[in-house]
């Protein structure tokens, strides 16, 4: 068993760290957080410098980790323009790959994934947005909630209902590429998020939006399966976000403690808390890399990915809370407080911690039955 990452990945990690330390200055991070502004210039820069390289999943994983370590809001923002791309990559036609994905891969377009609705996010099969076939088009009506890149993306991969469910609720769902410039499409940016405020989040409203039939990804009725396959991949990258937030919280805590008086920084309770943070980070990292290793070799173990996502997210929250407990007033008035606000989203998006536990326990009981 070898726990070392290959040399090219280690080099990429170093390159990304250098980039993040240079470009994600505290001033830039604060500005985008306070003003809830998407960092488009940084997105372009990260793309041009090869920081974000979606041809290699390992490079993507360590890049997310290192970027979020320096600033989670900016880190997520520059790596999220491709959110949902795997659905087209795995199930989309050549036409869709060429027409949409190629532009995203060239850094010339941004995309998003629209699943959640005002009525619910955990219960994916319960979505209400409908697409009705009229000749060679589909007409979509409904609303999507909390969609990342919602007011800035060029197009969305969207889950909709194309037929009434039969005895299984998750039947009758399909996914489409929906252009944000379509007539009847509107996006309302949601302001006032607790954290990840540099990311763009919006509510989408679809009022008789026409989508060509060729924009359907894969087969009609298989949308639920495609989305679940996607989440089983994308959750590993949320685990990487968690690792970054947790590690960044620890880095900054250690830096602050250096300047504290001897009595405090020498106190065992302080040092044991740091040890707990570091242990959880290492455990999260091992779990994440193990799940990633199965996934990236096309032998996915969704229960392992869900464990990594839930554990790394909870560790991020744990570390960010402990960081503020240890650093007190200095922590809550400095750059550390952003990590705390950013961390909490990780337990919510792309499957709440409860949903991850449902996935894990279902796999265990399924295995038991088999």
């Amino acid at each position: 068993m070898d726990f070392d990452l290959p040399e090219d990945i280690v080099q990429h990690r170093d390159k990304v760290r250098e980039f993040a330390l240079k470009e994600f200055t505290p001033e830039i991070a604060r500005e985008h957080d306070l003003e809830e502004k998407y960092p488009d210039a940084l997105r372009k820069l990260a793309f041009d410098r090869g920081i974000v390289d979606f041809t290699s999943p390992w490079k993507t994983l360590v890049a997310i980790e290192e970027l979020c370590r320096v600033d989670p809001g900016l880190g997520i923002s520059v790596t999220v323009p491709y959110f949902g791309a795997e659905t087209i990559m795995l199930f989309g036609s050549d036409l869709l790959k060429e027409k949409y994905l190629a532009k995203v891969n060239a850094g010339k377009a941004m995309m998003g994934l629209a699943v959640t609705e005002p009525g619910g996010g955990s219960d994916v099969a319960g979505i209400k947005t409908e697409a009705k076939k009229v000749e060679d088009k589909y007409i979509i009506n409904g609303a999507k909630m909390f969609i990342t890149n919602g007011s800035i993306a060029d197009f969305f991969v969207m889950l909709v209902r194309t037929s009434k469910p039969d005895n299984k609720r998750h039947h009758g769902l399909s996914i489409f590429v929906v252009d944000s410039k379509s007539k009847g499409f509107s996006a309302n940016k949601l302001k006032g998020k607790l954290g990840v405020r540099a990311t763009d989040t919006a509510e989408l409203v679809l009022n008789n939006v026409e989508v060509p039939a060729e924009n359907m990804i894969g087969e009609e009725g298989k949308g639920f399966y495609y989305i679940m396959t996607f989440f089983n991949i994308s959750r590993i990258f949320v685990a990487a976000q968690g690792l970054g937030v947790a590690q960044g919280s620890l880095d900054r805590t250690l830096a602050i403690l250096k300047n504290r008086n001897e009595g405090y920084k020498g106190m065992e309770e302080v040092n044991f808390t740091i040890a707990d943070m570091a242990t959880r980070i290492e455990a999260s990292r091992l779990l994440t890399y193990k799940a990633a290793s199965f996934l990236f070799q096309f032998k996915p173990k969704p229960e392992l990915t869900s464990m990594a996502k839930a554990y790394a997210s909870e560790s991020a929250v744990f570390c960010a809370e402990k960081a503020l407990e240890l650093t007190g007033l200095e922590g809550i008035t400095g750059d550390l407080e952003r990590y705390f606000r950013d961390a909490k989203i990780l337990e919510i998006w792309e499957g709440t911690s409860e949903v991850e536990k449902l996935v894990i326990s279902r796999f265990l009981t399924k295995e038991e039955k088999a």
Partner: protein
Amino acid sequence: MSDEQRSMLISAADEFFSKNVEPANALMEKDGISGDLMSRIGSQGFVGLLFPEDIGGSNVDAATYLLMLEEFARFSPSVALLIAVQNSIAYPLLSATVEGKEVLKAIAMGKRTAGIALSVSSMSRESVGNLKLEKGVLTGSKNYILSPSSETIIALTDDKPAAIIATKTGLPVKKYHALGFRGNGVGAATFDNAEHMILMRENGDQKMRQIFDNLDLDVAAIALGIAKGAMQKAMDYSRVRSTFGHLLKDYSPVAFSVSSMLEEVSRLTADLERTVDLDAAARKHFKIRAMDLAVQASRQSIQTHGGYGYLQDFGVEKFYRDSTSLLAIFGEGYSDKRDLADQVYGEKSGFL
């Protein structure tokens, strides 16, 4: 005060805060607690709760005071903390002089507020600020002032012996973007040549420590208010939100955590009345439990609300920021846990 009078007062606070304070929360988080809102709260007699009547106070007993703070914090932890500072810090320090009493009168009416320079035991003196009083003249600054835009700033000087002063006017302030208590704000201020009153000429550090110890129960009450406010919102939401065809409250992980935390809040609230008579160790322990519960409950409340919990509009994310800030400000440097250890062992312990 009879039980009946007390519950009437608390329901009056509940009504006033739900109608007047809660709707102002979003603006308060952005711009701080407005003078107008404080005047309205003052006119209800909710500011000078512990002040005697001759200076415009409501003169309520200690237990009622704590229950009122808890109630205020359910709606606005920032307002509750500001009121706590007026009653447990400004009042004991300013009430000894005629000039101080005039300031307290204005505070009771909500026309003026007092902010406090916080001490941070784990930081070097220079990082917290260096305020000097020489020949009646103030020089230097303090880096962590709670409610720094107040017209009166109370601070301990860094002289030996240490004095306690209160400024007569507001100071030029550099505000931080603080995680919580944004209604109050935290900032740094320069005191150079500021007009001031001397509240204590020496032993200021001892007095300040005693005052901050007295604030323990106020902090505990605010923490409980946060926990209650957060959990009530979680309970209300879980009764109406459905996923997978069932109400959230029907899922065991949701119902178990919401119900056990709400029950714990009720237990601790019931203890709050008795806490006034408890010894120092029990009070410290009570504060530690209440602060932990507030963080746990507010984190859980966001989780129960799912994506909506992450948005300001639903009013739960602020509880998470405020509870964590409460712990960071008033549980700083494990000072409570060290004090508790000292008190329980009866000698200096837990310092290594």
